[in-house]
């Protein structure tokens, strides 16, 4: 009976989506800009000037593969799919190679490492990078006098960040460095995309390596100067605006209010670097064309349109997703967005940049994978448990999650044959 109910409700939802799309429109399924207001912006602003009329259909990430598979076997209605790199990777077998777009990508200045990602490990371009977000650092200008001598914000290291926070604490009497380690904060992304790869060069393979041990030791020392309220922070823009925190790391969208409301008070800059480079996590969104697309030529036209510099700027204004193409940010852009945009570009273009992917291929186990990082952090930093023991224990847990998901290694870990293994 419940199966029937589920099918029935699915059919009802599907009939709504279909009803929404007109026959002459090209169906664009997207896991990004889902909330009503954002989807409306996508339709009214971003896709307004599209050469082909587009029906923009938001879809929940876990439903995307199901929806696509159903469409592949049935109605063939979807011509364009917009999703995160990690969401598109498992769908590669359902997507058309888009090598004809290679030229466009090179010409518009999409960075090489981004273009390489879009091949999904094949020789062909499997999606076209569409827009990106990432995580950066933010600081109140009041904290700048405490920067260690010789330190440059754009080439900061974790050692310098630690010293900076210590100086600021000494001068202000407060611990003013903050991380979003609250219940819905993105601390796991900091640990898996920034801190650990900066020290080990990878995410999974070196989880319990000597490099990882030295990283945790260093981070524990740095944590002495971190605001103890960090375990309550979810969005760093709030403590930054209230002045409780002067230096912070977070997702650009979660720092936005600080930069937008007080652009003169804050500076934005790239994440610090460790011994193995300046690891950062690009959140890359791509557009792909399913093999069964009813209107491939229309889809390619829409892709060309989305990559135009003007469209990329419109996208930035409407969604705070940054351009993937080389484009000068216009003069009249919101000053807060400009600050963030410059930091995103500096981080991506840094000499020692080490892009780290959002976990790929974990499917519904992504949450448990993140938990391993947060648990390790809790044990080592907050509960003072011995580092090596904790890493051994959590590495076993990590292996269990990887084995269940049968996930191969993802960049920057070296490619693996079969399931990724913790050394």
């Amino acid at each position, binding site marked *: 009976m419940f199966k029937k109910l589920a099918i029935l409700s699915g059919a009802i939802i599907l009939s709504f989506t279909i009803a929404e799309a007109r026959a002459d429109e090209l169906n664009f399924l997207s896991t990004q800009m889902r909330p009503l207001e954002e989807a409306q912006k996508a339709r009214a602003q971003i896709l307004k000037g599209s050469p082909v009329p587009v029906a923009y259909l938001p879809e929940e990430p876990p439903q995307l593969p199901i929806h696509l598979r159903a469409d592949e076997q049935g109605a063939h209605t979807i011509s364009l799919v917009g999703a995160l790199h990690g969401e598109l990777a498992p769908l590669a077998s359902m997507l058309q190679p888009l090598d004809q777009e290679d030229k466009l990508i090179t010409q518009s200045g999409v960075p090489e490492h981004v273009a390489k990602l879009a091949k999904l490990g094949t020789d062909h371009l499997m999606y076209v990078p569409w827009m990106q977000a990432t995580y950066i650092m933010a600081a109140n200008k009041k904290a700048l006098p405490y920067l260690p001598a010789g330190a440059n914000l754009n080439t900061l290291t974790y050692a310098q960040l630690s010293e900076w926070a210590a100086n600021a604490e000494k001068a202000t009497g*407060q611990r003013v460095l903050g991380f979003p*380690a609250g*219940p819905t904060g993105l601390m796991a992304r900091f640990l898996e995309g920034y801190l650990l790869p900066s020290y080990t060069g990878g995410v999974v393979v070196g989880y319990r390596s000597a490099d990882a041990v030295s990283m945790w030791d260093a981070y524990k020392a740095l944590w002495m100067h971190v605001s*103890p309220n960090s*375990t*309550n922070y979810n969005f760093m823009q709030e403590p930054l605006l209230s002045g*409780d925190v002067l230096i912070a790391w977070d997702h650009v969208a979660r720092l936005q209010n600080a930069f937008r409301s007080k652009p003169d008070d804050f500076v934005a800059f790239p994440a610090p670097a460790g011994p193995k480079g300046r690891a950062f996590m690009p959140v890359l969104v791509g557009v792909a064309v399913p093999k069964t697309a009813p209107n491939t030529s229309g889809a390619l036209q829409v892709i060309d349109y989305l990559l135009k510099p003007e469209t990329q700027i419109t996208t930035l204004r409407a969604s705070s997703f940054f351009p993937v193409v080389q484009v000068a940010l216009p003069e009249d852009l919101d000053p807060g967005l400009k600050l963030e945009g410059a930091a995103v570009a500096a981080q991506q273009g840094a000499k020692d940049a080490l892009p780290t992917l959002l976990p790929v291929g974990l499917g519904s186990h992504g949450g*448990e994978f993140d*938990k391993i990082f947060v*648990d390790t952090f809790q044990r080592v930093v907050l509960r003072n448990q011995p580092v090596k023991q904790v890493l051994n224990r959590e590495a076993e847990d990590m292996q269990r999650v990887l084995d269940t998901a049968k996930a191969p290694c993802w960049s920057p870990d070296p490619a693996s044959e079969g399931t990724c293994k913790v050394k």
Partner: protein
Amino acid sequence: MRGQTLRPYLLIMPSLAFLLLLFFVPLVQTVALAFSTTTGTGVGNFVQMLDDLDFRDSVRNTFGLVLCVVPLQLLAALGMSMMLRHVRWGRDIILWIWTIPLGISDLAAGLVWLAILTDKGYLNTILFEVGVISGPQSWLTYETPGALFLAILTAEFWRATAIVFVVLVAGVQLIPREYEEAASVFGATAWQRFRRVTLPLLRPSIQTALILRTVLAFEAFAVVLAVGGRNFPVLVSQAYLWQFTNQNYNVAACYAVLVTLVSLAATLVILIALRPRAGESA
């Protein structure tokens, strides 16, 4: 005639169907979810729950909170309902003010207390003005577990005493004044009258209030999450985290099953401990 006997059943059908569909079915599904693993049926999810970093803390915190807050609330509500008996003027207004927290959502109550207790909140502002502290003082961090517990206790106390109070007030109103007057005539002191007359007659109400409040206290969630964040894990917040952050519905279901069992056990204990004794007509 036949229609006559069927009618009551027809009338209760909707509520029965409602409960079966929206309570019993999910309950069975939750239990099934808790016992289903990748390799079939088993207790693997429970092992994972027991092995979880925050499991012990969440059990300790949940029981600590319930054992502290429920007796305090019972005492306060008893006191409040006794006092209200002697109020002649403005009784309705006092009743209304005391029950305000009932009308506020859990999360809103949690946020109110967060605004009071946060570093630059109202409490610190006042303490700073009177010169007790010289700068922002943290109360809600992992470095101040005692203050954090006290803060959550206060917030829960403030938010949920009203429900105990409302049940007790209704019970107190049912006790005929004659009993107490008779006791008074025989020379019983105020304490004796309360202890020997009112309290025994109030036992059914106390039982109801305790069951309601204890079950709700085991389910404390929004206030705790708002005030304590990750620093004060409780069973229900762990269920929430496993469901939505870790996205492991099976372990989340295990926590849910555990909360259900604990609540059932607590209800049984209260039912037995406060059952009417021989010779009492409760």
